[in-house]
């Protein structure tokens, strides 16, 4: 168990270090989410209200996450590291968990800037809304990392990832928007936690089949 977690930590640290040195994904995600907010300002006619803005926040978050996910396996693919990782004497699911952890770290880092920016530009977010974002992040990274590995194995690559991911992200958006605007957000937060647990287990169990033949 401890060696498994050590493998996961090593793999996640590798991704974080790569990003700190190359700095190609994080700035892109940050600029993307901020530009999206500017587009929203003009897309939302005057008087369309705060509820509409809360909904659009989720469009911005999901697409920003997609941007990061599409790049998530690029270093492995470009450097031919996949085969080495698969041959390494560690459980294959550790590769998925390490990558998902790294992507989650990126996404949270972006949101630390994006959520205050959203509050500044549009409307404030309460604790339940932030909890909804945090829970949805886990689901986005768990499912997204596995689907990104699938997309990386296909010819169409980045093109196919949104098609695979968006139908699976619909329940996350429901939970997230519900926790932000519903008078009783508890149910939605519970639903998000359930989604995270169910899909994390499936991704953890099935990742091996995505990277091996």
């Amino acid at each position, binding site marked *: 168990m401890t060696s498994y977690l050590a493998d996961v930590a090593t793999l996640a640290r590798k991704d974080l270090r790569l990003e700190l040195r190359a700095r190609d994904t994080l700035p892109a995600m940050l600029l993307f989410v901020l530009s999206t907010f500017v587009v929203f300002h003009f897309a939302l006619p005057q008087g369309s209200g705060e509820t509409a803005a809360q909904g659009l926040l989720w469009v911005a978050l999901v697409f920003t996450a997609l941007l990061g996910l599409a790049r998530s396996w690029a270093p492995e693919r470009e450097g031919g590291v996949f085969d080495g990782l698969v041959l390494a004497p560690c459980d294959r699911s550790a590769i998925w968990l390490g990558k998902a952890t790294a992507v989650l770290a990126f996404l949270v880092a972006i949101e630390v800037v994006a959520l205050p920016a959203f509050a500044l530009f549009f409307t404030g977010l309460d604790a339940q809304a932030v909890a909804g974002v945090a829970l949805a992040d886990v689901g986005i990274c768990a499912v997204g990392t*596995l689907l990104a590995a*699938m*997309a990386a*194995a*296909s*010819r*169409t690559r980045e093109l*196919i990832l949104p*098609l*695979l991911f*968006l*139908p*699976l992200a*619909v*329940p996350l958006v*429901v*939970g997230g*928007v*519900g926790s932000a*605007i*519903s008078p009783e957000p508890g*149910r*939605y937060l519970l*639903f998000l936690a359930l*989604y995270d647990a*169910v*899909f994390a287990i*499936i991704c953890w169990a*099935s990742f091996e*089949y*995505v990277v*091996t*033949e």
Partner: protein
Amino acid sequence: MSTSSRNSRVPALAALAAALVGVAIALVFFVAPEDADQGISQKIFYFHVPIALTAYACFGWGALKALLYLWRKDERYDLESYVGIHLGTVFGSLTLLTGSIWAKASWGVWWTWSSNQLVLFLVLFLFYAAYFMLRFSVDEGPRRANLSAVYALFGVVLVPVSFFAIRLASDFIHPTVFSRQGPQMSGTMFFAFCVSWAALTVLAYALYRVELAGKRLDAHVRDLREALA
């Protein structure tokens, strides 16, 4: 040889499906009483709901075969899983189509977000359309079979999760929900519904066998061509 003996049952199966569909149509239009509330437009219920149930069955079948593939690594299951999901998508599209017609007849609009079942089928349709995009952008082989199988398994989990999510969403998106609950089904109506359901299930199974036989024949011809070249 086993393939040809299996295929020899296909015409009989197709004939059974045709006969059952004929009986179902006769029962629906001539035996089952007209709905007091919705009139003739309610007749589409006898097709819409069984088609939807058949689509679910096909997706479930596809996922079951996908699981068997991951377990046993037999190529046969990959093809069977694909054909099951293909038919599920065809029946799913028909569900959207018949649901849309019914919505127009009873609510006056071609599409309504307040019908949870229709929204669920739209999400599933998009999900399974992506399955084909994925499958056809990976070269044939064990890698493609693995990816397709894992994605197919995601599908059976997505069905209950989405169903629940859409139920939750209808609380904040549409506070007023149209009710489809009419008066209780009478005995003959229920009988017609069951026959129609059986007919569509047999039809789906016959189509499944036909498509499977065709795909196997394709593979066989390709092997022969490669052997000759």
